[in-house]
């Protein structure tokens, strides 16, 4: 190890040494090439950016002709009263005026000459490279979020419910899986799975196209699904999906979620979901129009980002004919439920 330059036995203080040696040293560093090639500051033309197109100037509209010098009354100008003696030039900030010493134009040739390229340089610069020599971080990623996995205790029974979504893909194109369902008194009342192709169409919105399969209440009911989902302004997690069923039924679901931070780990999640149907379908218990609205408020604690148990309250209400069909079947049109569950992701 060679550290001798640093243990120079100079008795000068650092400050003095810096002051004395800086200019000389700067020269020695920067100028070793310039000793050989003196800059030629004269032959640099002023930069012309070429943006000014004089051919398009319309001098006729400039109105030079309207200045009527005849009407100027020079006699009223009192040149004599200007007292130049009162001007205090000492307070002028010449540096701020920006007109200082005109700078020498930059040289067109480099002070430090550009090395002449040799055949060996070319070989070293562009060696043969195998395809795939650069390893890249994976571009395909995935995530599975079980947003709700809960037990509920309602006014008219108890049960379980889930809502999960997952994706596999890149930044723009993703395969989405979404599933939602509910069990009540030991029986699965509803369960569905959606498989969709999603594409980012803007920084915050994806459009989705795919299929939804209902497993309950009706076996094997398949829908074509079209939707958007994303983060609305003010950070509302939003999704809206339209479904076209085999029977010509048309349905839609809108869901909006928000996260209200009580602390950075204690998070209140309000949620509203509404479902619509275009056609009356008594056999499925769906009237036309607004079928159902569900509003929930869940308070979770993030022990880690990936694991957060929660408690909450959820109210759901059936509307119109949908309510009537369910009441006729002995069910209730409204229910308020306490929920407890976990939110996890992988």
């Amino acid at each position, binding site marked *: *190890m*060679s550290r001798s*330059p*640093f*243990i*120079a036995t*100079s008795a*000068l203080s*650092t400050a003095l*040494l*810096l002051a004395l040696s*800086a200019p000389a*040293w*700067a*020269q*020695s*560093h*920067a100028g070793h*090439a310039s000793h050989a090639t003196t*800059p030629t500051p004269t032959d640099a033309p002023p930069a012309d950016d070429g943006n000014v197109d004089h051919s398009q100037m319309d001098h006729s509209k400039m109105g030079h002709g309207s200045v009527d010098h005849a009407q100027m009354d020079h006699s009223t100008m009192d040149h004599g009263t200007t007292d130049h003696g009162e001007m205090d030039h000492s307070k002028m900030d010449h540096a701020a005026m920006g007109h200082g010493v005109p700078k020498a134009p*930059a040289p067109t040739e*480099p*002070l*430090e000459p*550009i*090395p002449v*390229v040799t055949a060996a*340089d*070319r070989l*070293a*610069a*562009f*060696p043969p*490279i*195998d395809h*795939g*020599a*650069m*390893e890249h*971080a*994976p*571009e395909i990623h995935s*995530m599975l979020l079980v947003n709700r996995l809960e037990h509920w205790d309602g006014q008219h029974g108890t049960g379980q419910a889930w809502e999960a979504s997952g994706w596999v893909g890149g*930044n723009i194109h993703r395969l989405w899986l979404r599933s939602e369902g509910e069990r009540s008194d030991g029986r699965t009342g509803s369960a569905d799975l959606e498989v969709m192709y999603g594409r*980012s169409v*803007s*920084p*915050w919105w994806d459009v989705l196209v795919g299929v939804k399969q209902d497993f309950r209440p009706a076996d094997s009911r398949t829908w074509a699904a079209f939707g958007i989902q994303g*983060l609305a*302004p*003010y*950070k509302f997690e939003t999704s809206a999906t339209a479904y076209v069923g085999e029977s010509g039924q048309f349905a839609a679901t809108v869901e909006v979620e928000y996260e*209200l*931070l*009580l*602390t*950075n*780990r204690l998070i209140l999640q309000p949620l509203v979901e509404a479902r619509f149907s275009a056609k009356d379908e008594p056999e499925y218990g769906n009237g036309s129009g607004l079928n159902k609205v569900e509003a929930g408020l869940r308070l979770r604690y993030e022990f880690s*980002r990936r694991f957060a148990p929660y408690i909450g309250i959820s109210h759901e209400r059936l509307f119109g004919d949908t309510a009537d069909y369910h009441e006729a079947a002995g069910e209730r049109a409204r229910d308020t439920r306490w929920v407890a569950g976990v939110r996890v*992701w992988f």
Partner: protein
Amino acid sequence: MSFPKPPGTGTPPMPSRRLFVQGVAAGGVVAGLAATGLSPRAFAAAGPGLAGAPQVLSSHDVQLSIGESLANFTGRTRPAITVNGSLPAPILRWREGQTVNIRVANTLQGHPTSIHWHGLLLPANMDGVPGLSFNGIAPGEAYQYRFTLKQSGTYWYHSHSLFQEQAGLYGALIIDPLEPAPYHVDREHVILLSDWTDMDPGALFRRMKKLAEYDNYYKRTLPDFLRDVRKDGWAAATADRGMWGRMRMTPTDISDINAHTYTYLLNGTAPAGNWTGLFRSGEKVLLRFINGGSMTYFDVRIPGLKMTVVAADGQYIHPVSIDEFRIAPAETFDVIVEPSGQDAYTIFCQDMGRTGYAAGTLAVRHGLQAPIPARDPRPLLTMSDMGHDMGHASNGMAGHDMKGMEGGCGASMGHGAHGTDPKAPRHPASEQGNPLVDMQSMATEPKLDDPGIGLRDNGRNVLTYGAMRSLFDDPDGRDPGREVELHLTGHMEKFSWSFDGIPFASAEPLRLNYGERMRIVLVNDTMMQHPIHLHGVWSDLENADGEFHLRKHTIDMPPGTRRTYRVRADALGRWAYHCHLLYHMEAGMMREVRIEE
């Protein structure tokens, strides 16, 4: 473990849970897995000036062996990637003008590797970027590096293969000058800062792609909102939340990964290990600071000592006396201190987000420690930081609050040129409607005299790019013959990063003509700070008037800035050009720069 409360009111509570800031005292490499034939723990003191630092290799003929070792910085033993069994890698110490031969052997199981000599001017096939410079070093094979040192100063070296740098493959590289340095010092220490995670770095990347805000436990809460309503009134508080809400962003996004994931190291030592560099009272001590962190900006100060910065990125500058500096990943600063009157001083290096710190001690003997200062209050990004401070004068950069700026920006951002505002950048067409661009700046400036987020008006004299000036004139002298403007872009939530909205995988090379002098204009269209590194040639930062100002290899780009630098294309070949936040680079913020005849 507890920390004193930071000064200032209204600061959210400091993190205490899950934050293992101090690490373990006896941390470091515990065992070499690969048969390197060397001592697994190569932390031998190497001469009086460099006690406690890694081994120093100063031969012009060097053998480096890259392998896997076990390391323990947090109480858990985890795999690390090391050079000759050492983390950080050995200090390489050479002399300007020397031709060095370095044989790098790969003993990793099943993974290719590489070493890039950061900031060195050398032939392209010696630059160590797999896929651009060479094919990488396959397992069981070796690569012979050979190049002549055309410069002097403080540099570093690291892997350029996937996430190996995060796993520990980085070390200091010092080149002694042929001419005596323009200062005198009595001794010196290398201070290499870095960030360590117990996670597999690849898993950490996958985590970022799933939930980029994972580590941001500092988001503003309902109680914070109520406090702001009391302090600033309902209208101002809702306007403020509304603006951020429309952007779907959060002003506490200072760094993607913080002390919830990282343990910060100083010379491979966690704070509890108290790395100590010795001095004798009255000596002038040169500290060679290197930020080898993968994702961490450090704010460095030594309470009780003035620091005189004499070099940046290895190149001498006019000396500037300061109390504190921010060092971006990949930057190096040489500073001189003159400790006297105290037996111990703390080198305190808090991360930019104020979530943790690296620390060590300058002392007259081992075993001493000075108090560790409290971390500063966590900063909040302002609209000025975001490049959304339209029409506000920003002399002094006092950190404008956006309160009262209702409606100026937000959901309506993203329409390119804004008429007459000279600060309004023109955005490339590839950004328009691009799902990978979540934000665009509307008013940018060089901000060369801005100390930066969290460092303004802190009562200390903080280093800025404006305050640093190369000790030499522009060695090339020519005016740039042309200009290339590139915008730094990204999407926070998707954790996608790019230039001009085009990630590396789909980007064309940027082509330079051999011998030309050109200007690169960078505009930061993100809310994050990015250190941009161009391999092979210098990046000569210009001042606000477009004149040569500061020669660097890594140009830091805070949010809301537009900075320009000159490039002299005198190195033929294919060069990497990228953000030196490792995970941003791997997420796409990279280009190939091809210098051709």
